[in-house]
């Protein structure tokens, strides 16, 4: 039976939304799965582990419009480990961005496709999530669960596909909701909206 290695590429690692997306995937996957978190010191260990799996799923947030440096660093190391003899798993990804438009992940996904092509890896399924910072804390979480179920099934059935999900809100409603989300975030740290909105840098 095939197995899935879920690789959390979020710099926030254990406190990340990517962790939660990965946990949902593990719970819906009909295949056996294991999860690892990329750290500064375990790149070689993960490269070795990947050879035991048929599927790898990278779960990570969009950073500055593309792959976060934490994951980029790992991909560069992995590329060096991918010799002609190395077994190649299917490469899947769950990418989330904080903005409501899931399409803001598209260039990042193209970069992953380029990585796969360069290294003779087969790109499998992709789930592109918009409003990924907040959606899990809203009633719209069920939509994400639904998409991750479909994503998980596509791995088992080898029917690879690109999925997309975001909050079904107008942009105006999204901005209002996100403003409140960040005000509450600051409040928990004792920081006011006006302080958060400072125009001075450093």
């Amino acid at each position, binding site marked *: 039976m095939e197995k899935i290695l879920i690789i959390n590429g979020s710099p926030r690692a254990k406190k990340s939304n990517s962790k939660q997306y990965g946990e949902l995937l593990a719970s819906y996957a009909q295949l056996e799965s294991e999860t690892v978190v990329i750290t500064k010191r375990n790149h070689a260990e993960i490269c070795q582990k990947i050879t035991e799996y048929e599927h790898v799923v990278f779960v990570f*947030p969009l950073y*500055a419009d593309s792959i976060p440096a934490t994951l980029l660093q790992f991909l560069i190391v992995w590329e060096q480990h991918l010799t002609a003899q190395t077994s190649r798993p299917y490469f899947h990804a769950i990418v989330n961005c904080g903005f409501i438009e899931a399409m803001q992940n598209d260039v990042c996904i193209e970069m992953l496709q380029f990585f796969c092509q360069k290294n003779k890896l087969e790109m499998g399924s992709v789930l592109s999530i918009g409003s990924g910072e907040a959606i899990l804390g809203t009633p719209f979480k069920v939509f994400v669960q639904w998409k991750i179920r479909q994503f998980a099934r596509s791995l088992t059935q080898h029917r690879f596909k690109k999925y997309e999900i975001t909050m079904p809100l107008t*942009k105006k409603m999204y*901005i209002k909701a996100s403003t409140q989300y960040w005000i509450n975030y600051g409040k928990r740290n004792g920081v006011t909206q006006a302080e958060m909105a400072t125009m001075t840098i450093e």
Partner: protein
Amino acid sequence: MKLVLSDTALPLDFSQQADASYINLDELKIATCIGCFGCWTKTPSKCVIRDDATKVYPIIAKSEHVIYVSKLQYGGYDLPMKTMLERAIPTQQAFIRLVDGEAHHVQRNVPLKAATIIAYGNICQQEQAIFERLVARNAHNMNFASVRVIFTSEAQLETVVMEEVAAWKKS
């Protein structure tokens, strides 16, 4: 204010010019962003990691003309430049606004920029096309009023940068 931000050493010396800076990222110690949102919600506009990045992002913020010089990696910036750009988020607020109908963060005191991105390395057409699309996305998030992308080889890099800097001096 003008800035050349590079991931490799270049024969530039702006010490006699008060309005220009040259930063070689290769000489700096810059850790990766840990995604803590501290610069938005705990110490607004200040990164909680007090390394060399804290000297760089205020200069990025106040520059009206920037030249970014970076090797490419999978159609994006290579690690040194990518790490720095991620660490520059204290220049933005957590709050979201619409730019050309798309959601993006509100900028703090960051003037619009004329940006030139010089990407070097052994770059195929497909990688060029991806990078151009990436820079177009960056334009929204990094306050570029105009942007030009130049692709070159590592061997030609110095010549290309010096031409761009000379064009700055004439303008």
